[in-house]
Protein backbone atom coordinates (compact mmCIF):
# COMPACT_ATOMS: atom_id res chain seq x y z
CA UNK A 1 0.00 0.00 0.00
CA UNK A 2 1.53 3.32 -1.01
CA UNK A 3 1.78 6.29 1.32
CA UNK A 4 -0.89 8.31 -0.42
CA UNK A 5 -3.32 5.44 -0.37
CA UNK A 6 -2.72 4.91 3.33
CA UNK A 7 -3.28 8.57 4.18
CA UNK A 8 -6.47 8.49 2.16
CA UNK A 9 -7.77 5.61 4.24
CA UNK A 10 -6.88 7.47 7.40
CA UNK A 11 -8.78 10.50 6.21
CA UNK A 12 -11.68 8.35 5.21
CA UNK A 13 -11.65 6.68 8.58
CA UNK A 14 -11.47 9.95 10.41
CA UNK A 15 -14.38 11.48 8.53
CA UNK A 16 -16.86 8.66 8.14
CA UNK A 17 -19.84 10.93 7.41
CA UNK A 18 -18.27 12.56 4.41
CA UNK A 19 -19.14 10.13 1.67
CA UNK A 20 -16.88 9.72 -1.39
CA UNK A 21 -17.98 10.85 -4.84
CA UNK A 22 -20.43 8.00 -5.31
CA UNK A 23 -22.14 9.11 -2.05
CA UNK A 24 -25.48 9.75 -3.66
CA UNK A 25 -26.05 6.02 -3.84
CA UNK A 26 -25.33 5.67 -0.16
CA UNK A 27 -27.46 8.60 0.89
CA UNK A 28 -30.63 6.58 1.56
CA UNK A 29 -28.55 4.16 3.60
CA UNK A 30 -27.02 6.93 5.70
CA UNK A 31 -30.37 8.63 6.11
CA UNK A 32 -32.13 5.45 7.16
CA UNK A 33 -29.30 4.62 9.60
CA UNK A 34 -29.67 8.11 11.12
CA UNK A 35 -33.42 7.66 11.30
CA UNK A 36 -33.04 4.32 13.05
CA UNK A 37 -30.62 5.95 15.50
CA UNK A 38 -33.10 8.70 16.30
CA UNK A 39 -35.91 6.16 16.65
CA UNK A 40 -33.81 4.03 19.00
CA UNK A 41 -32.94 6.99 21.22
CA UNK A 42 -36.56 8.12 21.17
CA UNK A 43 -37.77 4.63 22.12
CA UNK A 44 -35.33 4.45 25.01
CA UNK A 45 -36.62 7.78 26.30
CA UNK A 46 -40.22 6.59 26.45
CA UNK A 47 -41.65 3.11 26.28
CA UNK A 48 -45.16 4.36 25.60
CA UNK A 49 -43.80 6.56 22.85
CA UNK A 50 -42.09 3.54 21.32
CA UNK A 51 -45.28 1.48 21.52
CA UNK A 52 -47.34 4.22 19.94
CA UNK A 53 -44.87 4.76 17.14
CA UNK A 54 -44.87 1.01 16.43
CA UNK A 55 -48.67 1.09 16.28
CA UNK A 56 -48.61 4.08 13.94
CA UNK A 57 -46.03 2.52 11.64
CA UNK A 58 -48.13 -0.64 11.38
CA UNK A 59 -51.19 1.50 10.73
CA UNK A 60 -49.46 3.34 7.91
CA UNK A 61 -48.44 0.01 6.37
CA UNK A 62 -51.99 -1.26 6.65
CA UNK A 63 -53.22 1.90 4.96
CA UNK A 64 -50.70 1.65 2.13
CA UNK A 65 -51.31 -2.05 1.47
CA UNK A 66 -55.01 -1.87 2.32
CA UNK A 67 -56.05 -3.46 -0.96
CA UNK A 68 -53.87 -6.50 -0.32
CA UNK A 69 -54.75 -6.84 3.38
CA UNK A 70 -58.50 -6.32 3.31
CA UNK A 71 -60.30 -9.66 2.97
CA UNK A 72 -63.04 -8.13 0.78
CA UNK A 73 -63.41 -5.08 -1.42
CA UNK A 74 -64.81 -2.04 0.40
CA UNK A 75 -67.86 -1.92 -1.84
CA UNK A 76 -68.45 -5.64 -2.34
CA UNK A 77 -71.95 -6.37 -1.09
CA UNK A 78 -72.81 -9.80 0.23
CA UNK A 79 -76.59 -9.88 0.00
CA UNK A 80 -76.75 -13.18 1.83
CA UNK A 81 -75.29 -11.54 4.93
CA UNK A 82 -76.96 -8.18 5.65
CA UNK A 83 -76.25 -6.71 9.09
CA UNK A 84 -74.55 -9.90 10.23
CA UNK A 85 -72.75 -9.92 13.58
CA UNK A 86 -69.04 -10.82 13.58
CA UNK A 87 -68.40 -14.34 12.29
CA UNK A 88 -65.50 -16.27 10.78
CA UNK A 89 -66.39 -15.09 7.29
CA UNK A 90 -66.78 -11.47 8.39
CA UNK A 91 -64.56 -10.87 11.42
CA UNK A 92 -66.11 -7.50 12.20
CA UNK A 93 -69.58 -8.22 10.85
CA UNK A 94 -71.32 -6.61 7.88
CA UNK A 95 -73.37 -3.46 7.39
CA UNK A 96 -76.86 -2.98 6.01
CA UNK A 97 -75.64 -3.58 2.45
CA UNK A 98 -73.70 -6.68 3.41
CA UNK A 99 -70.34 -4.95 3.08
CA UNK A 100 -67.54 -6.33 5.25
CA UNK A 101 -66.92 -3.89 8.13
CA UNK A 102 -63.32 -4.98 8.71
CA UNK A 103 -62.41 -4.39 5.07
CA UNK A 104 -64.07 -1.00 5.16
CA UNK A 105 -62.17 -0.02 8.30
CA UNK A 106 -58.89 -1.12 6.70
CA UNK A 107 -59.54 0.75 3.45
CA UNK A 108 -60.98 3.65 5.42
CA UNK A 109 -57.67 3.96 7.27
CA UNK A 110 -56.13 5.11 4.01
CA UNK A 111 -58.63 7.93 3.49
CA UNK A 112 -58.60 8.96 7.12
CA UNK A 113 -54.81 9.04 7.43
CA UNK A 114 -54.35 10.76 4.09
CA UNK A 115 -56.84 13.48 4.95
CA UNK A 116 -55.36 13.99 8.41
CA UNK A 117 -51.77 14.12 7.21
CA UNK A 118 -52.24 16.44 4.24
CA UNK A 119 -54.59 18.81 6.04
CA UNK A 120 -52.22 19.16 8.98
CA UNK A 121 -49.23 19.55 6.68
CA UNK A 122 -50.94 22.38 4.80
CA UNK A 123 -52.38 24.01 7.93
CA UNK A 124 -49.13 23.93 9.89
CA UNK A 125 -47.09 25.11 6.91
CA UNK A 126 -49.28 28.16 6.44
CA UNK A 127 -49.64 28.78 10.17
CA UNK A 128 -45.93 28.52 10.94
CA UNK A 129 -44.94 30.69 7.97
CA UNK A 130 -47.43 33.24 9.21
CA UNK A 131 -46.11 33.02 12.75
CA UNK A 132 -42.48 33.39 11.67
CA UNK A 133 -43.17 36.37 9.45
CA UNK A 134 -45.46 38.06 11.95
CA UNK A 135 -43.13 37.51 14.88
CA UNK A 136 -40.00 38.49 13.02
CA UNK A 137 -41.41 41.51 11.23
CA UNK A 138 -43.04 42.92 14.36
CA UNK A 139 -44.37 46.46 14.34
CA UNK A 140 -47.56 47.43 12.62
CA UNK A 141 -47.70 44.30 10.47
CA UNK A 142 -47.52 42.11 13.56
CA UNK A 143 -50.21 44.16 15.29
CA UNK A 144 -52.56 43.91 12.33
CA UNK A 145 -51.94 40.22 11.84
CA UNK A 146 -52.54 39.59 15.54
CA UNK A 147 -55.91 41.33 15.34
CA UNK A 148 -56.75 39.25 12.28
CA UNK A 149 -55.79 36.11 14.18
CA UNK A 150 -58.07 37.26 17.01
CA UNK A 151 -60.91 37.31 14.52
CA UNK A 152 -60.02 33.88 13.17
CA UNK A 153 -59.79 32.49 16.71
CA UNK A 154 -63.17 33.92 17.65
CA UNK A 155 -64.61 32.51 14.44
CA UNK A 156 -65.65 28.97 15.28
CA UNK A 157 -63.49 26.60 13.25
CA UNK A 158 -66.25 24.04 12.89
CA UNK A 159 -68.51 26.59 11.24
CA UNK A 160 -65.83 27.65 8.80
CA UNK A 161 -65.19 24.02 7.96
CA UNK A 162 -68.91 23.33 7.54
CA UNK A 163 -69.40 26.40 5.34
CA UNK A 164 -66.52 25.38 3.10
CA UNK A 165 -67.73 21.80 2.90
CA UNK A 166 -71.25 22.78 1.94
CA UNK A 167 -70.25 25.51 -0.50
CA UNK A 168 -67.48 23.60 -2.26
CA UNK A 169 -69.41 20.31 -2.07
CA UNK A 170 -68.07 17.49 0.06
CA UNK A 171 -65.00 15.66 -1.14
CA UNK A 172 -61.50 14.73 -0.10
CA UNK A 173 -59.96 18.01 -1.35
CA UNK A 174 -62.56 20.16 0.37
CA UNK A 175 -62.30 18.42 3.71
CA UNK A 176 -58.51 18.76 3.59
CA UNK A 177 -58.81 22.50 3.01
CA UNK A 178 -61.53 22.85 5.66
CA UNK A 179 -59.45 21.13 8.35
CA UNK A 180 -56.26 22.91 7.30
CA UNK A 181 -57.90 26.33 7.66
CA UNK A 182 -58.90 25.65 11.25
CA UNK A 183 -55.29 24.83 12.18
CA UNK A 184 -53.77 28.08 10.97
CA UNK A 185 -54.51 30.59 13.77
CA UNK A 186 -53.46 28.38 16.70
CA UNK A 187 -50.18 27.40 15.06
CA UNK A 188 -49.42 30.96 14.02
CA UNK A 189 -49.90 32.06 17.64
CA UNK A 190 -47.57 29.48 19.18
CA UNK A 191 -44.87 29.84 16.52
CA UNK A 192 -44.99 33.63 16.80
CA UNK A 193 -44.41 33.42 20.53
CA UNK A 194 -41.34 31.23 19.93
CA UNK A 195 -40.06 33.58 17.24
CA UNK A 196 -40.39 36.61 19.53
CA UNK A 197 -37.71 35.17 21.81
CA UNK A 198 -35.57 33.74 19.01
CA UNK A 199 -35.52 37.12 17.28
CA UNK A 200 -33.60 38.69 20.15
CA UNK A 201 -30.86 36.05 20.19
CA UNK A 202 -27.28 36.89 19.28
CA UNK A 203 -27.02 34.63 16.26
CA UNK A 204 -29.95 36.44 14.67
CA UNK A 205 -28.41 39.82 15.38
CA UNK A 206 -25.08 38.70 13.95
CA UNK A 207 -26.77 37.33 10.85
CA UNK A 208 -28.41 40.70 10.38
CA UNK A 209 -25.12 42.46 11.06
CA UNK A 210 -23.32 40.67 8.24
CA UNK A 211 -26.04 41.89 5.91
CA UNK A 212 -28.38 38.92 5.53
CA UNK A 213 -31.73 39.92 4.06
CA UNK A 214 -34.83 39.54 6.27
CA UNK A 215 -36.04 36.67 4.11
CA UNK A 216 -32.71 34.89 4.54
CA UNK A 217 -32.64 35.45 8.29
CA UNK A 218 -36.16 34.10 8.62
CA UNK A 219 -35.57 31.07 6.43
CA UNK A 220 -32.11 29.99 7.62
CA UNK A 221 -31.76 31.36 11.14
CA UNK A 222 -35.21 31.75 12.69
CA UNK A 223 -37.19 28.96 11.04
CA UNK A 224 -34.89 26.10 12.18
CA UNK A 225 -35.51 27.19 15.76
CA UNK A 226 -39.25 26.59 15.49
CA UNK A 227 -38.92 23.05 14.13
CA UNK A 228 -39.09 21.39 17.57
CA UNK A 229 -42.34 23.03 18.72
CA UNK A 230 -43.73 22.61 15.22
CA UNK A 231 -43.13 18.84 15.29
CA UNK A 232 -45.03 18.61 18.57
CA UNK A 233 -47.91 20.70 17.22
CA UNK A 234 -47.90 18.51 14.14
CA UNK A 235 -48.15 15.27 16.11
CA UNK A 236 -50.94 16.53 18.35
CA UNK A 237 -52.69 18.13 15.38
CA UNK A 238 -52.94 14.80 13.59
CA UNK A 239 -55.14 13.45 16.35
CA UNK A 240 -57.33 16.53 16.12
CA UNK A 241 -57.57 16.19 12.36
CA UNK A 242 -58.64 12.56 12.61
CA UNK A 243 -61.32 13.60 15.07
CA UNK A 244 -62.41 16.46 12.80
CA UNK A 245 -62.62 14.23 9.74
CA UNK A 246 -64.56 11.65 11.71
CA UNK A 247 -66.98 14.24 13.10
CA UNK A 248 -67.57 15.94 9.75
CA UNK A 249 -68.01 12.66 7.91
CA UNK A 250 -70.27 11.47 10.72
CA UNK A 251 -72.47 14.49 10.00
CA UNK A 252 -72.55 13.42 6.38
CA UNK A 253 -70.53 16.45 5.25
CA UNK A 254 -67.11 14.87 4.98
CA UNK A 255 -65.96 11.98 2.84
CA UNK A 256 -68.95 11.22 0.60
CA UNK A 257 -70.17 7.60 0.59
CA UNK A 258 -69.84 4.91 -0.67
CA UNK A 259 -66.07 5.36 -0.18
CA UNK A 260 -65.39 4.30 3.40
CA UNK A 261 -63.86 6.52 6.09
CA UNK A 262 -64.05 5.84 9.80
CA UNK A 263 -66.33 8.82 10.31
CA UNK A 264 -68.84 8.11 7.58
CA UNK A 265 -69.06 4.48 8.66
CA UNK A 266 -70.38 5.74 11.99
CA UNK A 267 -72.64 8.30 10.30
CA UNK A 268 -74.07 5.71 7.94
CA UNK A 269 -75.48 3.72 10.84
CA UNK A 270 -77.64 6.58 12.05
CA UNK A 271 -79.09 7.16 8.62
CA UNK A 272 -80.28 3.60 8.32
CA UNK A 273 -81.45 2.78 11.81
CA UNK A 274 -82.19 4.15 15.21
CA UNK A 275 -81.14 0.91 16.79
CA UNK A 276 -77.57 0.54 15.57
CA UNK A 277 -75.95 -2.92 15.46
CA UNK A 278 -73.20 -2.85 18.06
CA UNK A 279 -70.31 -4.02 15.87
CA UNK A 280 -70.84 -1.17 13.43
CA UNK A 281 -70.53 1.29 16.31
CA UNK A 282 -67.65 -0.43 18.07
CA UNK A 283 -65.28 -1.27 15.21
CA UNK A 284 -64.80 2.12 13.48
CA UNK A 285 -64.98 3.87 16.87
CA UNK A 286 -62.16 1.78 18.28
CA UNK A 287 -60.11 2.44 15.15
CA UNK A 288 -60.54 6.20 15.66
CA UNK A 289 -59.91 6.03 19.40
CA UNK A 290 -56.76 3.91 19.24
CA UNK A 291 -55.28 5.99 16.46
CA UNK A 292 -55.89 9.25 18.32
CA UNK A 293 -54.58 7.61 21.50
CA UNK A 294 -51.38 6.52 19.77
CA UNK A 295 -50.94 9.97 18.26
CA UNK A 296 -51.45 11.66 21.63
CA UNK A 297 -48.97 9.36 23.36
CA UNK A 298 -46.51 9.85 20.53
CA UNK A 299 -46.97 13.62 20.74
CA UNK A 300 -46.37 13.63 24.51
CA UNK A 301 -43.26 11.49 24.20
CA UNK A 302 -41.98 13.62 21.35
CA UNK A 303 -42.47 16.77 23.39
CA UNK A 304 -40.53 15.36 26.32
CA UNK A 305 -37.85 14.06 24.00
CA UNK A 306 -37.36 17.27 22.07
CA UNK A 307 -37.53 19.78 24.89
CA UNK A 308 -38.90 19.27 28.38
CA UNK A 309 -39.18 23.04 28.71
CA UNK A 310 -41.84 23.18 26.01
CA UNK A 311 -44.31 21.48 28.30
CA UNK A 312 -45.99 24.52 29.75
CA UNK A 313 -46.18 26.51 26.58
CA UNK A 314 -47.83 23.91 24.41
CA UNK A 315 -50.33 22.69 26.91
CA UNK A 316 -52.35 25.89 26.69
Amino acid at each position, binding site marked *: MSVTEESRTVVARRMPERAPSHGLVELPLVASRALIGVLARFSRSSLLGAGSIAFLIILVFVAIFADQIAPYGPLVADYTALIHPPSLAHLAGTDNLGRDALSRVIIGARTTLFVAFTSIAIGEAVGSAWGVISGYAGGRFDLLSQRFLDVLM*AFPGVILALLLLVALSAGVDTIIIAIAVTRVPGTARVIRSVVLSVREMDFVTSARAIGASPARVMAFHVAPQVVAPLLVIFASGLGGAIFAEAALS*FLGLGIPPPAPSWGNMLGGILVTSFNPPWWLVVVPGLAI*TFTILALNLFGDALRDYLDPKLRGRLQQ
Partner: protein
Amino acid sequence: MRRYLLKRLLLAIPTIVGVTVLIFIVMRVLPGDPLAIIFGENTGIYVLTEEQLQASRRSLGLDKPLYAQYFAWMGDVLRGDFGRSFWRPDPVREIIVRRGAISAQIALMAVAISWVVGLPIGILSAVRRNSTLDYVSRFLVTLFMAVPSFWLGLTFILITVIFFTWKPPITVNYLWTDPLKNLQMTIGPAIAMGIGLGAFIARMNRTTLLEVIREDYVRTARAKGLTERVVILRHALKNSLLPVVTVSGLQLAGLLGGSVAVERAFGVPGLGTALVQAITERDWMVIQNLVLLYAVIFVFVNLAIDLAYGWIDPRVRYG
Protein backbone atom coordinates in the same frame (compact mmCIF):
# COMPACT_ATOMS: atom_id res chain seq x y z
CA MET B 1 -59.96 47.36 37.42
CA ARG B 2 -62.65 49.45 35.82
CA ARG B 3 -60.16 50.85 33.32
CA TYR B 4 -58.99 47.34 32.50
CA LEU B 5 -62.55 46.22 31.91
CA LEU B 6 -63.23 49.20 29.68
CA LYS B 7 -60.05 48.59 27.71
CA ARG B 8 -60.90 44.93 27.17
CA LEU B 9 -64.42 45.76 26.08
CA LEU B 10 -63.13 48.33 23.61
CA LEU B 11 -60.62 45.80 22.27
CA ALA B 12 -63.43 43.28 21.82
CA ILE B 13 -65.29 45.54 19.39
CA PRO B 14 -62.85 45.24 16.46
CA THR B 15 -62.70 41.47 16.94
CA ILE B 16 -66.46 41.08 16.83
CA VAL B 17 -66.83 43.47 13.91
CA GLY B 18 -64.08 41.54 12.15
CA VAL B 19 -65.98 38.31 12.62
CA THR B 20 -69.17 39.82 11.20
CA VAL B 21 -67.31 41.14 8.15
CA LEU B 22 -65.58 37.80 7.66
CA ILE B 23 -68.72 35.68 7.83
CA PHE B 24 -70.57 38.17 5.63
CA ILE B 25 -67.90 38.04 2.96
CA VAL B 26 -67.28 34.29 3.23
CA MET B 27 -70.94 33.49 2.63
CA ARG B 28 -71.18 35.77 -0.37
CA VAL B 29 -67.88 34.73 -1.91
CA LEU B 30 -68.44 31.00 -1.63
CA PRO B 31 -70.52 29.59 -4.47
CA GLY B 32 -74.17 28.89 -3.77
CA ASP B 33 -76.60 31.77 -3.65
CA PRO B 34 -79.48 30.65 -1.40
CA LEU B 35 -82.13 31.17 -4.06
CA ALA B 36 -80.07 29.50 -6.74
CA ILE B 37 -79.71 26.43 -4.55
CA ILE B 38 -83.33 26.11 -3.56
CA PHE B 39 -85.00 27.29 -6.74
CA GLY B 40 -82.32 26.63 -9.33
CA GLU B 41 -82.92 24.90 -12.65
CA ASN B 42 -81.58 21.46 -11.75
CA THR B 43 -81.02 21.55 -8.02
CA GLY B 44 -84.20 23.10 -6.76
CA ILE B 45 -87.42 21.68 -5.48
CA TYR B 46 -89.54 24.37 -7.10
CA VAL B 47 -88.46 26.08 -10.27
CA LEU B 48 -89.18 29.80 -10.37
CA THR B 49 -89.24 32.06 -13.38
CA GLU B 50 -86.67 34.83 -13.64
CA GLU B 51 -89.21 37.48 -12.49
CA GLN B 52 -90.28 35.42 -9.49
CA LEU B 53 -86.62 34.94 -8.57
CA GLN B 54 -86.02 38.69 -8.73
CA ALA B 55 -89.10 39.34 -6.63
CA SER B 56 -88.11 36.92 -3.90
CA ARG B 57 -84.57 38.32 -3.98
CA ARG B 58 -86.01 41.76 -3.37
CA SER B 59 -88.24 40.53 -0.56
CA LEU B 60 -85.20 39.03 1.20
CA GLY B 61 -83.18 42.18 0.62
CA LEU B 62 -80.61 40.36 -1.49
CA ASP B 63 -80.93 42.76 -4.44
CA LYS B 64 -79.23 45.63 -2.61
CA PRO B 65 -75.48 46.25 -2.91
CA LEU B 66 -73.32 44.29 -0.46
CA TYR B 67 -72.37 47.18 1.79
CA ALA B 68 -76.03 48.16 2.11
CA GLN B 69 -76.90 44.57 3.09
CA TYR B 70 -74.12 44.54 5.65
CA PHE B 71 -75.11 47.83 7.26
CA ALA B 72 -78.77 46.86 7.25
CA TRP B 73 -77.83 43.68 9.13
CA MET B 74 -75.63 45.52 11.62
CA GLY B 75 -78.34 48.13 12.16
CA ASP B 76 -80.89 45.41 12.88
CA VAL B 77 -78.52 43.67 15.28
CA LEU B 78 -77.90 46.87 17.21
CA ARG B 79 -81.65 47.32 17.56
CA GLY B 80 -81.84 43.78 18.92
CA ASP B 81 -83.52 42.42 15.82
CA PHE B 82 -81.80 39.33 14.47
CA GLY B 83 -83.96 39.05 11.39
CA ARG B 84 -85.79 35.94 10.35
CA SER B 85 -84.94 32.71 8.68
CA PHE B 86 -85.13 32.78 4.89
CA TRP B 87 -87.17 29.62 4.62
CA ARG B 88 -89.04 29.26 7.90
CA PRO B 89 -91.38 31.63 9.66
CA ASP B 90 -89.24 31.66 12.84
CA PRO B 91 -87.39 34.82 13.77
CA VAL B 92 -83.72 34.04 14.44
CA ARG B 93 -84.13 35.27 17.99
CA GLU B 94 -86.71 32.50 18.53
CA ILE B 95 -84.23 29.89 17.28
CA ILE B 96 -81.53 31.20 19.56
CA VAL B 97 -83.77 31.25 22.62
CA ARG B 98 -85.41 27.88 22.01
CA ARG B 99 -82.40 25.88 20.91
CA GLY B 100 -79.76 27.89 22.69
CA ALA B 101 -81.43 27.04 25.99
CA ILE B 102 -80.90 23.35 25.33
CA SER B 103 -77.33 23.72 24.11
CA ALA B 104 -76.40 26.01 26.98
CA GLN B 105 -77.91 23.63 29.51
CA ILE B 106 -76.00 20.68 28.06
CA ALA B 107 -72.79 22.71 27.96
CA LEU B 108 -73.09 23.79 31.59
CA MET B 109 -73.92 20.26 32.67
CA ALA B 110 -70.97 18.90 30.69
CA VAL B 111 -68.55 21.34 32.31
CA ALA B 112 -70.01 20.59 35.74
CA ILE B 113 -69.58 16.85 35.11
CA SER B 114 -66.02 17.43 33.93
CA TRP B 115 -65.20 19.18 37.23
CA VAL B 116 -66.93 16.60 39.36
CA VAL B 117 -65.10 13.79 37.56
CA GLY B 118 -61.85 15.48 36.68
CA LEU B 119 -60.85 17.42 39.79
CA PRO B 120 -60.94 14.56 42.33
CA ILE B 121 -59.10 12.26 39.93
CA GLY B 122 -56.50 14.93 39.27
CA ILE B 123 -56.03 15.62 42.98
CA LEU B 124 -55.80 11.95 43.98
CA SER B 125 -53.45 11.25 41.12
CA ALA B 126 -51.15 14.08 42.15
CA VAL B 127 -51.24 13.36 45.87
CA ARG B 128 -50.63 9.63 45.44
CA ARG B 129 -48.06 10.13 42.76
CA ASN B 130 -46.72 6.96 41.10
CA SER B 131 -49.08 4.73 43.06
CA THR B 132 -51.23 2.10 41.38
CA LEU B 133 -54.14 4.52 41.65
CA ASP B 134 -52.11 7.15 39.81
CA TYR B 135 -51.22 4.74 37.02
CA VAL B 136 -54.78 3.53 36.60
CA SER B 137 -56.18 7.04 36.55
CA ARG B 138 -53.53 8.26 34.14
CA PHE B 139 -54.31 5.36 31.84
CA LEU B 140 -58.03 6.16 31.93
CA VAL B 141 -57.38 9.86 31.45
CA THR B 142 -55.19 9.27 28.40
CA LEU B 143 -57.73 6.85 26.99
CA PHE B 144 -60.73 9.13 27.44
CA MET B 145 -58.88 12.10 26.00
CA ALA B 146 -58.67 10.10 22.79
CA VAL B 147 -62.28 8.90 22.66
CA PRO B 148 -64.34 11.08 20.30
CA SER B 149 -67.29 12.52 22.22
CA PHE B 150 -69.86 11.68 19.56
CA TRP B 151 -68.70 8.07 19.51
CA LEU B 152 -68.99 7.95 23.28
CA GLY B 153 -72.53 9.22 22.74
CA LEU B 154 -73.29 6.46 20.24
CA THR B 155 -71.92 3.83 22.62
CA PHE B 156 -73.96 5.35 25.43
CA ILE B 157 -77.13 5.00 23.34
CA LEU B 158 -76.15 1.48 22.33
CA ILE B 159 -75.68 0.41 25.92
CA THR B 160 -78.93 1.93 27.12
CA VAL B 161 -80.82 0.42 24.21
CA ILE B 162 -79.34 -3.07 24.59
CA PHE B 163 -79.18 -3.39 28.35
CA PHE B 164 -81.91 -1.11 29.60
CA THR B 165 -84.17 -1.05 26.53
CA TRP B 166 -84.41 2.66 27.11
CA LYS B 167 -84.32 5.37 24.48
CA PRO B 168 -83.89 9.12 24.82
CA PRO B 169 -87.29 10.88 24.56
CA ILE B 170 -88.12 12.17 21.12
CA THR B 171 -90.15 15.15 22.28
CA VAL B 172 -88.45 18.35 23.37
CA ASN B 173 -88.88 19.37 26.98
CA TYR B 174 -87.40 22.29 28.85
CA LEU B 175 -86.15 22.30 32.39
CA TRP B 176 -88.99 24.61 33.37
CA THR B 177 -91.75 22.60 31.66
CA ASP B 178 -90.84 19.01 32.50
CA PRO B 179 -87.57 18.69 34.44
CA LEU B 180 -87.51 14.90 34.43
CA LYS B 181 -88.04 14.48 30.70
CA ASN B 182 -85.64 17.34 30.09
CA LEU B 183 -82.92 15.62 32.07
CA GLN B 184 -83.51 12.39 30.16
CA MET B 185 -82.83 14.31 26.97
CA THR B 186 -79.82 16.28 28.16
CA ILE B 187 -77.97 13.93 30.48
CA GLY B 188 -76.67 11.69 27.69
CA PRO B 189 -74.99 14.41 25.64
CA ALA B 190 -73.73 16.05 28.84
CA ILE B 191 -72.04 12.84 29.99
CA ALA B 192 -70.68 12.08 26.53
CA MET B 193 -69.00 15.49 26.39
CA GLY B 194 -68.27 15.84 30.09
CA ILE B 195 -66.15 12.71 30.38
CA GLY B 196 -63.75 13.77 27.66
CA LEU B 197 -63.46 17.24 29.17
CA GLY B 198 -63.06 15.72 32.61
CA ALA B 199 -60.11 13.65 31.43
CA PHE B 200 -58.48 16.81 30.20
CA ILE B 201 -59.20 18.62 33.47
CA ALA B 202 -57.81 15.73 35.51
CA ARG B 203 -54.58 15.71 33.55
CA MET B 204 -54.22 19.47 33.72
CA ASN B 205 -54.98 19.56 37.43
CA ARG B 206 -52.53 16.78 38.18
CA THR B 207 -49.67 18.55 36.41
CA THR B 208 -50.27 21.94 37.98
CA LEU B 209 -50.92 20.50 41.45
CA LEU B 210 -47.63 18.61 41.30
CA GLU B 211 -45.87 21.88 40.54
CA VAL B 212 -47.67 23.77 43.29
CA ILE B 213 -47.01 21.10 45.93
CA ARG B 214 -43.29 21.71 45.52
CA GLU B 215 -43.60 25.39 46.45
CA ASP B 216 -42.33 26.90 49.67
CA TYR B 217 -45.66 28.00 51.05
CA VAL B 218 -46.95 24.44 50.89
CA ARG B 219 -43.94 23.30 52.88
CA THR B 220 -44.66 26.11 55.36
CA ALA B 221 -48.25 24.97 55.67
CA ARG B 222 -47.09 21.44 56.38
CA ALA B 223 -44.48 22.70 58.83
CA LYS B 224 -47.20 24.54 60.72
CA GLY B 225 -48.68 21.12 61.32
CA LEU B 226 -51.75 21.46 59.16
CA THR B 227 -53.32 18.20 58.10
CA GLU B 228 -52.54 17.01 54.60
CA ARG B 229 -56.19 17.47 53.70
CA VAL B 230 -56.15 21.15 54.54
CA VAL B 231 -52.77 21.67 52.88
CA ILE B 232 -53.99 20.21 49.59
CA LEU B 233 -57.58 21.42 49.49
CA ARG B 234 -57.16 24.87 51.05
CA HIS B 235 -53.66 25.88 50.09
CA ALA B 236 -52.45 24.02 47.05
CA LEU B 237 -55.64 23.36 45.11
CA LYS B 238 -56.64 26.97 44.73
CA ASN B 239 -53.37 27.90 43.10
CA SER B 240 -53.48 24.95 40.77
CA LEU B 241 -56.89 25.96 39.46
CA LEU B 242 -55.81 28.79 37.17
CA PRO B 243 -55.08 26.69 34.08
CA VAL B 244 -58.09 24.52 34.83
CA VAL B 245 -60.33 27.58 34.79
CA THR B 246 -58.83 28.73 31.51
CA VAL B 247 -59.40 25.37 29.88
CA SER B 248 -62.93 25.04 31.24
CA GLY B 249 -63.82 28.51 30.06
CA LEU B 250 -62.63 27.85 26.54
CA GLN B 251 -64.39 24.49 26.51
CA LEU B 252 -67.58 26.12 27.70
CA ALA B 253 -67.33 28.72 24.95
CA GLY B 254 -66.94 25.93 22.42
CA LEU B 255 -69.80 23.92 23.88
CA LEU B 256 -72.29 26.78 24.12
CA GLY B 257 -72.58 26.63 20.37
CA GLY B 258 -73.58 23.03 20.82
CA SER B 259 -71.32 20.20 19.82
CA VAL B 260 -72.82 19.44 16.44
CA ALA B 261 -71.77 15.81 16.27
CA VAL B 262 -72.91 14.93 19.79
CA GLU B 263 -76.27 16.59 19.22
CA ARG B 264 -76.58 14.58 16.05
CA ALA B 265 -75.68 11.34 17.82
CA PHE B 266 -78.42 11.88 20.38
CA GLY B 267 -80.85 13.62 18.04
CA VAL B 268 -81.05 16.61 20.36
CA PRO B 269 -82.37 19.77 18.69
CA GLY B 270 -79.72 22.21 19.89
CA LEU B 271 -77.99 25.18 18.33
CA GLY B 272 -75.46 22.96 16.59
CA THR B 273 -78.19 21.10 14.74
CA ALA B 274 -79.83 24.40 13.83
CA LEU B 275 -76.55 25.65 12.44
CA VAL B 276 -75.90 22.59 10.30
CA GLN B 277 -79.41 22.84 8.93
CA ALA B 278 -78.97 26.54 8.21
CA ILE B 279 -75.67 25.91 6.46
CA THR B 280 -77.04 23.18 4.23
CA GLU B 281 -80.01 25.41 3.36
CA ARG B 282 -77.83 28.51 2.84
CA ASP B 283 -79.99 30.32 5.36
CA TRP B 284 -77.68 33.34 5.48
CA MET B 285 -79.58 35.27 8.12
CA VAL B 286 -79.49 32.38 10.58
CA ILE B 287 -75.81 31.59 9.89
CA GLN B 288 -74.72 35.23 10.20
CA ASN B 289 -76.42 35.75 13.50
CA LEU B 290 -75.36 32.44 15.01
CA VAL B 291 -71.74 33.12 14.08
CA LEU B 292 -72.05 36.57 15.61
CA LEU B 293 -73.45 34.95 18.75
CA TYR B 294 -70.53 32.52 18.94
CA ALA B 295 -68.01 35.31 18.51
CA VAL B 296 -69.62 37.38 21.26
CA ILE B 297 -69.69 34.36 23.58
CA PHE B 298 -66.06 33.57 22.80
CA VAL B 299 -64.90 37.12 23.49
CA PHE B 300 -66.87 37.42 26.72
CA VAL B 301 -65.86 34.02 28.04
CA ASN B 302 -62.24 34.99 27.47
CA LEU B 303 -62.83 38.19 29.40
CA ALA B 304 -64.57 36.28 32.18
CA ILE B 305 -61.60 33.90 32.41
CA ASP B 306 -59.20 36.79 32.81
CA LEU B 307 -61.40 38.33 35.49
CA ALA B 308 -61.64 34.98 37.28
CA TYR B 309 -57.86 34.98 37.58
CA GLY B 310 -57.98 37.96 39.89
CA TRP B 311 -60.57 36.28 42.03
CA ILE B 312 -58.70 32.99 42.33
CA ASP B 313 -55.25 34.50 42.63
CA PRO B 314 -55.32 37.98 44.21
CA ARG B 315 -51.71 38.53 43.14
CA VAL B 316 -52.93 38.95 39.57
CA ARG B 317 -53.16 42.65 38.82
CA TYR B 318 -54.94 44.15 35.88
CA GLY B 319 -53.02 46.79 33.97
